[in-house]
């Protein structure tokens, strides 16, 4: 689709905005027009906050989570249990688990999963950092919080292999019938897995 612009500035702004994921040309135009018509300092505020973000954000040196300083708030927190690490793919997964307020351990953000097809090998992920953490000996358990995709499973398998000479306990987040879901609509594989890895029933849980 080609758009005819009456202004070079507008065209550049639309081009720039549409470089963002899930923003097409039309949405970009709408956003740009919105900013033109806005009489407050909105454009400046947005631009400034993005620049500040980009210039200041860093990675936690312990867990590879996004942070403002070299250690993230979770790793700094006194109330967190340091002997349990939940291994996740990316920062969004940390936020999803944090939102539940059910987890008091700390994290390790891999930054992706192993996928030779996409050119992602162990050296492209923060796997060495995780190994170092485990080998320091303070960790009792690693919870594999990776998505149950084919590549996620391969990555878990790989991690368990390279950590097999340590005595860390490796566990896996439960997979099965979704809460609030109906059994008959769950797929065969999920049901089979749920039956295989059933858990003891505790009344009142």
């Amino acid at each position: 689709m080609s758009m005819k612009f009456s202004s070079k500035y507008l065209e550049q702004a639309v081009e720039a905005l549409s470089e963002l994921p899930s923003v097409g040309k039309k949405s970009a135009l709408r956003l740009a027009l919105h900013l033109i018509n806005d009489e407050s300092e909105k454009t400046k505020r947005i631009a400034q906050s993005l620049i500040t973000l980009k210039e200041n954000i860093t990675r936690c040196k312990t867990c590879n989570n996004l942070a403002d300083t070299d250690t993230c708030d979770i790793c700094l927190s006194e109330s967190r249990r340091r002997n349990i690490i939940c291994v996740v793919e990316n920062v969004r997964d940390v936020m999803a688990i944090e939102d539940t307020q059910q987890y008091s351990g700390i994290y390790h953000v891999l930054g992706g999963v192993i996928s030779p097809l996409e050119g992602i090998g162990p050296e492209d992920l923060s796997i060495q950092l995780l190994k170092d953490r485990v080998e320091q000996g303070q960790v009792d358990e690693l919870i594999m919080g990776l998505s149950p995709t084919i590549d996620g499973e391969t990555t878990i398998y790989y991690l368990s292999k390279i950590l097999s000479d340590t005595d860390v306990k490796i566990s896996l987040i439960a997979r099965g019938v979704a809460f609030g879901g109906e059994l008959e609509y769950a797929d065969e594989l999920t049901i089979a897995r749920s039956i295989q890895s059933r858990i003891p029933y505790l009344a009142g849980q």
Partner: protein
Amino acid sequence: MEEIAIKDTRLYQYRNFDNVKLGFDAKLNVVVGRNGMGKTNLLDSIHYVCIGKSYFSSGDRYIFKDSSPDFSLISKISVGQADSLVKVICKKTTKKSLSINDKVHDRLSDHLGNFPIVVVAPNDTLLLLNTSDERRKLIDRSISQCSPSYLKQIIEYNHLLKQRNSLLKSSKEKGFLNTIVLDSISERMYPLAMDIFERRKSFTAELSKNFEAHYQKFSSANESCSCSYLSQLEEYSLMELFRRDLEKDKVLGRTSSGIHKDDLNFIINDEKLKPFASQGQLKSFIMSLKLAQYECLKTNLGIQPILILDDVFDKLDKYRVEDLLEIVLGDHIGQVFISDTSEERIPGILKNKQQKARIIVVHEGLIQNSYDI
């Protein structure tokens, strides 16, 4: 045994059909018309609603009529006493949606096995080519209709295979192979390969039994025949194969052994059946194989599948046509769809037999006429 029948279907912007709605006979439907009028397209639309994809094209992009942005198929299908409304809506811009009674099926594998179907078509001779793809496709298509989890295993195995190949290839370029990553992929392929092997093996055994029985009926001469499953896993486990071929795989930059090399072997009179076998042998072979597949699906699912015979009557003489009709009209076969270029031949034979049927005359993407005899 439950009967399954397509009651009616509506094709919208599907290949050369603009917007057509038509009803079917519960037993026999004969689509007639000259070449290129849309007979195969009509039969393919039946396969599409049953399986969720085309039998004849490898992708949906070939199905859109001219420059139409979308196509849809809506069919009422009865299984036993219950009617289901199957809707396929495919747009160029979004993912296609497939629903049964307005409940959307997210994955194609959820749809498989509900409406089993067997297709016999001229391109079935591809089964005799040197490459084994078509023969594996025949096995995979059949087993996945019986067990949706099989399809998932195949998809998973193929994905891991691609990862493994890609690792081998990039390692060849880099001159360094991370064997722990390789093992992580290989060891996950292992249980899948075992399962797929077992399922293919038991399916082929069943198929072979039925195939031999049918072939005896078809071939006039007393020919012996058999069909057997060939797999490297018969002798070695996947891990043994991978270990054995590791050096070779490193040089090739791909995986040279595994269940993706499985094959079927067809033997007629102690000789391997070749693509240049006699026409009679070929026709008997394909019909027997497809009817054997039909039989296997029927026993495993407890449903009489739909049978599609596209253009198979073309080069047959009158007697063979009658023989074949006799077989498909039997009680052991459910609803049948046949296409033929002659408007008179099959309807003529059916009238003589006083066999009820729906005749559908297709002309340039339109239903010119549809009548019962």
